[in-house]
């Protein structure tokens, strides 16, 4: 049932709009809309009921274990939500002057300081509104840096082939060519290939570490030297920052610029696709280029740093200051964790991942890089299973839904065939991990005994497998009713 099917012409939800219909005196006829938009005409109760029931059709962290690799689906503390939504915070206009927002700005300033500390960077700007937005800011700063030195020859960004798709896409948006380099059998960047790739055309290297293969790039120091020696800068994709939070600082590895996904590492909600927040941190040499606005503090007062203060800034990335409410949630989370709590994030995320790896291996799953430590995530490859039974990674993923678990990430990274990328996060208990292992064991048995059962999964979800081909071929993107 669509909300439009609950609609009936002429119905109105009278408490939600002014009782008196104001006269539109000041707008000439030619500007006026002739036909009303197709919005639902439903009662408040029907709307509440419709969306409450729709919500129940979702898996979510609050209802299921959600071991989606590279997505860091950890618990989103409820206090972050309620405190970020205190009436005064919600009511504050973005263009209200700083003097009316000292409480809010104190939070933002302190968040900047904490993020600097955990990343080991010299400066942080909070304004990017998602990871990819932060990536854009980062690469734009790399470009601004080179150009500020009169170096216009650097037109290439190097990206390992295991990288997230956002990396090459971002580089292109910043006007760069992308050079992909291969990964070796251990899951590390191929150093020889990297050496061959760098040169005076190299603007920088974008690296996720631990990588999307779930392993820590052992030769990071060598990589750093190769790139820097070639005059390039090092970009840290913070997608996997949770794996090292409080343990290793990207700044200490020699990165020049980093983006963080606060909706991963700082536990702001994913919200079914967003909003996120992708603050960027920079080393000293990139400080002048950070995107504005930034919160400054002087004479006991917080104030916005803008173009006037930072003439070399790459500029403004949002109409206001970014996803303030998301940043507030991250701030509250950070204050509850504190230094001690942050040190533990990476430790327990890593413990959970390695435990799950060990247990899945014991029951017969193939691990993509069995000789390596898992970082906060790891890869299972089902190539062997598929060859033997025809059961694919997708089948296993769908069957997990029937068992009450969200599926891991499937078919990413693309380098590993029939892969499941599994990230349990630090907030799951051993009890839950054990239940997941039990489900995976049952599935393995089903795969061997009744593979056709898995082909038809899931069975218990609101819908069964969907026809994606039809969806793309016979585009139905709006209700025509």
């Amino acid at each position, binding site marked *: 049932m669509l909300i439009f099917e609950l609609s009936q012409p002429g119905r109105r939800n009278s408490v939600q709009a002014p009782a008196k219909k104001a006269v539109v005196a000041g*707008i000439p006829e030619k500007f006026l809309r002739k036909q009303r938009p197709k919005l639902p005409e439903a009662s408040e109760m029907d709307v509440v009921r419709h969306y409450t029931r729709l919500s129940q059709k979702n898996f979510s962290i609050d209802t299921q274990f959600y071991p*989606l690799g590279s997505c860091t689906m950890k618990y989103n503390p409820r206090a972050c939500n309620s405190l970020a939504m205190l009436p005064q915070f919600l009511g504050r206009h973005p263009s209200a002057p700083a003097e009316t927002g000292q409480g809010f700005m104190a939070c933002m300033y302190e968040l900047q300081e904490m993020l600097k500390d955990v990343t080991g960077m010299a400066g942080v700007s909070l304004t990017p509104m998602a990871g990819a937005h932060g990536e854009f800011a980062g690469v734009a700063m790399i470009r601004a840096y080179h150009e500020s030195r009169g170096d216009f020859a650097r037109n290439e960004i190097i990206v390992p082939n295991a990288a997230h798709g956002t990396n090459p896409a971002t580089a292109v948006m910043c006007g760069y060519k992308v050079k992909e380099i291969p990964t070796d059998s251990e899951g590390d960047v191929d150093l020889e290939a990297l050496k061959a790739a760098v040169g005076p055309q190299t603007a920088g290297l974008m690296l996720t570490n631990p990588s999307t293969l779930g392993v820590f790039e052992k030769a990071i120091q060598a990589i750093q030297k190769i790139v820097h020696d070639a005059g390039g800068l090092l970009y840290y994709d913070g997608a996997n920052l949770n794996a090292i939070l409080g343990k290793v600082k990207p700044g200490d590895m020699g990165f020049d610029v980093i983006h963080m996904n606060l909706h991963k590492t700082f536990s702001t909600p994913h919200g079914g696709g967003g909003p996120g927040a992708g603050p960027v941190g920079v080393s000293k040499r990139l400080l002048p280029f950070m995107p504005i606005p930034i919160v400054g503090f002087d004479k006991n007062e917080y104030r916005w740093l803008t173009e006037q203060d930072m003439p070399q800034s790459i500029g403004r990335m949002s109409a206001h200051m970014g996803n303030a409410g998301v940043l507030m949630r991250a701030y509250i989370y950070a204050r*509850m964790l504190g230094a001690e709590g942050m040190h533990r994030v990476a430790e327990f995320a890593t413990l959970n991942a390695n435990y799950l790896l060990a247990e899945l291996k014991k029951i017969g799953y193939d691990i993509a890089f069995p000789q390596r430590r898992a970082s906060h995530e790891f890869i299972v490859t089902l190539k062997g299973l598929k060859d033997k039974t025809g059961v694919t990674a997708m089948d296993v993923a769908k069957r997990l839904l029937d068992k009450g678990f969200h599926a891991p990430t499937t078919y990413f990274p693309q380098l590993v065939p029939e892969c499941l990328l599994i990230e349990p996060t630090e907030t799951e208990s051993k009890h839950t991990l054990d239940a997941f292992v039990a489900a995976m064991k049952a599935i393995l048995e089903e795969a061997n005994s009744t593979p056709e059962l898995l082909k038809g999964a899931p069975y218990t979800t609101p819908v069964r497998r969907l026809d994606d081909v039809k969806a793309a071929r016979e585009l139905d993107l709006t209700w025509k009713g």
Partner: protein
Amino acid sequence: MPFIPHTEEDIRAMLDSIGAESIENLFDEIPAALRSGKLTRVPEGMSEMEVSRLMQDRAETDGRYLNFIGAGAYEHHIPAAVWQITTRGEFYSAYTPYQAEASQGTLQLIYEYQTMMASLTGMDVSNASLYDGASALAEAVLMAVRSHKSSRRILMPKTVHPNYRKVVQVTVKNQGIELVEVDYDAKLGTISTDLNDDADFAALVIPQPNFFGNLEEVDVLTDWAHSKGSLVIGVVNPMSLALITPPGEWGSNGADIVVGEGQPLGAPLASGGPYYGFMACKTALVRQMPGRIVGRTVDLEGKQGFTLTLQAREQHIRRSKATSNICTNQGLVVTASTIFMSLLGPDGLERVAASCHANTLALLDMLAKIEGVEQVFPGPNFHEAVIRVSSPAADILRALRAQGILGGYDLSADYPELGQAILVCATETKTDGDLQRYAEQMERILSKRREAPPCAYKS
């Protein structure tokens, strides 16, 4: 250990299973020199009780003002149901709906949202959201350039929100795209209908209402741009669309791409975010559109279901050839917005829009009677307008603030040519009493300054 559930016994059993001595061991592939991570500027952890007290104190520091600022973010009443449902765990803590069978709630909601936005804008299709209005405009510019192929010039009027123009500049400048500033008619405060740019251009951007709150001559402008073989990008306030002609009906053929700030439809002001950018376009352009799109299809039993579609445009499939690098969008705010639109319906939205308009006109009437205040442009306006005051705008606004009033947006930095100009907005949230209070304070302040100009208000 905040939010970490492990007992000592768990840890021991887990390490045994792994075959590791200690948790520290699990980091043994990381060069020792890098493992320090000591935090010096992160304070000790607080309990939820402590952080609650801190945040409440800070919230009270910020207080509550009677707000007449608009300038791209508008104060509207948001029904209580909106965020109570939106923050239900199943919406709040779900991921992007890649596993469609486990995400029908979010997916169906987005499909409904797409339908509502397409209808509101008068366009064929909508995506599932972008970051905000400004970045949506930047994406629209990129999209127009991709579609147009022969030109990388974009006509960008000065009546577009100044910050939007800045964001577009930052976003597109490294792709060889030229933004050509189009000045406004000084008397009318709108784009001149007498444009005569002869060079090829990919698109003309048309804000409606424009940053000054004035209504542009969208029909003439749209037809002109189309006659030049260019696209039209509409930048609209979605709340205004309950009253005024949707971009899909501008001129003979309508705008090609429509973007805007979704905030007025259910997002609180909240110091600037999270809001969301919306984007709608004609069917012909859908494969050039960035961002996620949900389609309706069937499952293997023939039952209706929803799924992400046209993913071949996106970065996770297409990598460096994607339409955009966008991945995370503003899903939760879209959730709120969809519920908001459903609760208001067409009639409710129209009433709210009409009330905003009427309140702003009433306020302008009151202000017009005050010595030292004049309305700069003749209109028509939707719910915002520019006034000029006889004293420095910054001083007036500061004096109003002392009375608990945020009197508007100071235009003197962005548009110095307008003099001491303030952009004022009165939405449906303002009562007659509020408007009077504003006008009375304005009158009091201006008259006091006339009597004792220099030192009456210290800065």
